[in-house]
């Protein structure tokens, strides 16, 4: 193998698995250390720079970081990253003075944002401090998009939502709320320098089965129903409720139903429990509220009596695989199952829809009715029109929308400065030694063996009776500290300087997880097998040095490194050093600086 190029910004970034997995690349270990120091506001600001909505995401994020956490590979549970983010938001002091200043004198460029969800607000957050004038169009009277309409208040309290929306709205946005844009053509005529479309994926799918027409009044699509609940247009539901679907919307629907008078609420899923798309913790919360989840039941018809919906009929199926390994659901042949119901909530998916965009403007769409985009710049086939969030690549999550927003804002900024938007500025990285003394580091390298801390929940008797009462209470400071100690500090990198190595084996002997090997060089596949412990996780890199004096190389398997720093502590020549790698994606504010 060739010596590893650690100057490549991706190399050490990949070692910080959580940050690499985060769509917005939030520097997770950095803010976790700050939480451990009770520097909550500092931790919050790091989050705010990267993901804009720490308090909201600290409660609602899909957490792609957590399955990526290295802790999963050495024990069972990842660090509770998301819940720690919430701790930063819960315990911070007033941070308003730390928000970026917005210049009074504008730069003369005017950007339109359509839809006041996380993607658009991120664009606003990035462009306002640079002097842009922003006009934000929203069909509803209030901002927040899916964060307001799709997430029930018992998961995301109103004050948390408002606080973080207002950090951005108060920077000075022309808000045109309650105004639905019906024509992109007309909007483009208004002379905006760029238009950003962040309208989400607003169409809930409904299930057209026999009986649908007669039962229509009691069949609701999940996301529309949740939005109506959020805006208090709906405040009750029938006693018996069936929720169709196995995603997070289904979990929110069933839990909301329980709070609006639903007594027998059942979630019915076509496929198996393991295949459900909902986040495990949301499934767990629904089950804790005594909501049964019925799997392998395919809906067949709405049963009507006296012109009214009374039940649904399901066919039982089982899972089989065909010769191509494709999963099939085969009817078991058993009698159909009938579940009585007053209301049915369909949470079986959502679609994009762009009725406002005329098809002769040069904005092209693919066969799934999604805009054709450059996936780095988020520019559409119309040079002034950008997309982000669910509107760009189809339904996803808040953190992805934020990441799109940052990228689109950067593109808009480059384009308004007449620069090539395809030439992206480099990420901002630093790599600094953490050495404080012979065996002292400026990070805590003594790793906690504790298992993941359980987060306290409010009593079910109370939460089920108050739709606005938050269920998850969040870690207190003591629990949070315990949880922070579980973080392995994967951003503190083991950096090897081959010229200093005397090949004494001290690092090999001390490494608790057998990461380091001195051996003859070989092709990667062979080298992986020649390691002290074979490096079988191909997703994780091998760090390879240049030739050493004995003709061998140092090869380190990044996979299971605990970042405990013992290799560097035992190294007599400081050939190993522990260096903190900070990685921040380049945002609009980092571009066009002359």
């Amino acid at each position, binding site marked *: 193998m060739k010596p590893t190029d650690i100057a490549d910004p991706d190399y050490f970034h990949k070692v910080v698995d959580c940050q690499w997995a985060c769509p917005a690349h939030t520097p997770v270990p950095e803010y976790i250390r700050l939480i451990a120091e009770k520097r909550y506001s500092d931790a919050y600001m790091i989050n705010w720079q990267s993901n804009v909505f720490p308090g909201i995401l600290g409660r609602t994020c899909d957490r792609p970081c957590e399955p990526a956490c290295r802790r999963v*590979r*050495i*024990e069972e549970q990842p660090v509770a990253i998301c819940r720690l983010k919430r701790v930063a938001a819960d315990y911070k002091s007033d941070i308003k003075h730390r928000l970026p200043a917005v210049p009074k004198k504008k730069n003369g460029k005017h950007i339109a944002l359509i839809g006041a969800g996380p993607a658009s607000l991120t664009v606003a957050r990035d462009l306002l401090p640079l002097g842009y004038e922003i006009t934000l169009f929203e069909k509803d009277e209030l901002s927040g998009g899916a964060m307001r309409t799709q997430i029930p208040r018992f998961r995301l309290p109103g004050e948390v939502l408002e606080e973080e929306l207002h950090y951005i709205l108060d920077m000075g946005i022309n808000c045109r709320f309650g105004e639905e844009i019906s024509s992109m053509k007309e909007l483009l005529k208004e002379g905006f320098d760029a238009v950003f479309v962040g309208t989400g994926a607003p169409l809930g799918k409904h299930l057209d089965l026999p009986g649908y027409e007669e039962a229509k009044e009691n069949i609701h699509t999940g996301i529309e129903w949740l939005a109506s609940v959020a805006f208090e247009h709906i405040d009750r539901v029938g006693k018996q409720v069936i929720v169709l679907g196995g995603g997070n919307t289904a979990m929110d629907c069933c839990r909301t139903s329980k709070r609006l008078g639903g007594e027998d609420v059942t979630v019915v899923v076509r496929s198996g429990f393991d295949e459900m798309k909902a986040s495990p913790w949301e499934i767990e919360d629904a089950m804790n509220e005594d909501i049964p989840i019925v799997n392998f039941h395919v809906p067949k018809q709405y049963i009507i009596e006296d012109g009214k919906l009374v039940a649904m009929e399901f066919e039982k199926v089982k899972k089989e695989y065909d010769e191509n390994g494709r999963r099939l659901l085969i009817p078991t042949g058993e009698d159909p199952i009938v579940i009585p119901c007053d209301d049915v909530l369909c949470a079986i998916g959502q679609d994009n829809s762009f009725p406002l965009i005329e098809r002769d403007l040069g904005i092209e769409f693919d066969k799934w009715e999604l805009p054709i985009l450059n996936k780095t710049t988020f520019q559409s086939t119309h040079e002034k029109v950008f997309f982000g969030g669910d509107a760009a690549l189809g339904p996803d999550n808040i953190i992805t929308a934020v990441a799109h927003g940052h990228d689109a804002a950067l593109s808009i900024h480059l384009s308004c400065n007449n620069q090539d938007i395809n030439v992206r500025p480099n990420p901002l990285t630093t790599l600094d030694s953490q050495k404080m003394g012979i*065996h*002292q580091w400026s990070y805590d*390298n*003594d*790793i906690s*063996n504790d298992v993941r801390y359980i987060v306290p929940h409010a009593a079910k008797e109370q939460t089920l009776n108050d739709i606005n009462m938050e269920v998850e209470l969040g870690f207190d400071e003591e629990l949070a500290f315990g949880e922070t100690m579980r973080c392995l500090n994967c951003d503190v990198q083991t950096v090897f300087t081959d010229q200093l190595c*005397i*090949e*004494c*084996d*001290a690092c*090999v*002997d*001390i490494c*608790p*997880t*057998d990461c380091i090997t001195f051996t003859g060089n070989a092709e990667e596949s062979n080298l992986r097998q020649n390691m002290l*412990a*074979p490096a*079988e996780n191909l997703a994780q890199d091998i760090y390879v040095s240049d030739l050493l*004096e*004995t003709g061998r190389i140092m090869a380190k398997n990044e996979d*299971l490194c*605990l970042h*405990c720093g*013992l290799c560097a*502590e*035992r*190294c*007599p*020549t400081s050939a190993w050093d522990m260096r903190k790698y900070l990685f921040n994606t380049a945002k609009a504010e980092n571009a066009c600086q002359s």
Partner: protein
Amino acid sequence: MSYISKPKFQHPNLEPNEIGLTRRDYEGTLTTLCGGCGHDSISAAIIQAAADMSLEPHRVAKISGIGCSSKIPSYFLSKAHGFNSVHGRMPSVATGANLANKELFYVGISGDGDSASIGLGQFCHIVRRRINMLYIVANNGTYGLTKGQLSATADLGSKTKSGEESLYDNIDMATLAIELGASFVARSFSGDKQQLIPLLQAGLTHKGFAFIDVVSPCVTFNNTESSTHGYKNTWENYIALSEVDFVPMRKEITTSYDAGKEKEITLHDGSVIHLHKTGTNYDPYDKENALHHINQHKKKGKIATGLLYINQSTSDLHELQDTVDKPFNRLTNHDLCPGNEVLRDINETFR
């Protein structure tokens, strides 16, 4: 010295050995030796050797004297018996322990100061008395604990870190052990675990006195360009007279070698030492030849390593003394005081 303890997390694929332990279970406390000390590699090699052999830790006794080397027993097999004795007196304690219980594996760890200076007399006698044990000298050619004076194993002309030159020829512990009748003599290097681990396993299995002289650089006081015991000099002048593989008795032999070109040594318990041809055509059964080879290499500034000498036909102290089989702690009252009748029979023999 590290302030943290070694994390308990281990590689998830670390295979347990035949008695269900992983290598991590054979560790001791976290080392307090200087980072880069060869002695730590010796501990690591012993840990690996013991784990691979599925040794039961409670059946091992580790005994040492004084010096950096004699701290090593703390850093491996924390579940084994241990005795950190007086300077140079490890052989006496090992002899006593061995007499009291011949069923344990005895690992004596000493250094060049402990064995070649203050304890040289003790060393000579334990070799002569053929105690069944593995005696390791962690040899760095310097008194590290007292900050780097020349030791008795420092080669003629080798210099200390402060520039003082050795005016005397060194004591070669390996040739001395051969001369005095040791039945297993090897030399290795802390940096070469591939060689050291099988030698340790063979030495532990060998019945009789097994001696391994391990060049183990003192990274703090004797790792200079002008030192013959530093990493650089050892890597450059290190010659393996034989490449060693150890196959424990229980394990099936799966690797195939070019049978005509290697030597196989079967130990008393059925374990096998494989010696691979290195071009030297070295015969480890020939005492004179061994001494000759070591000296020839030494003249050229080379360090001859590997299994230098083995003799499986000698008897150990217990056989020579016809001692009791049972460990003393298991002798019953009746064993110790067999009664009047036995006394009468004994007296009868003197009439």
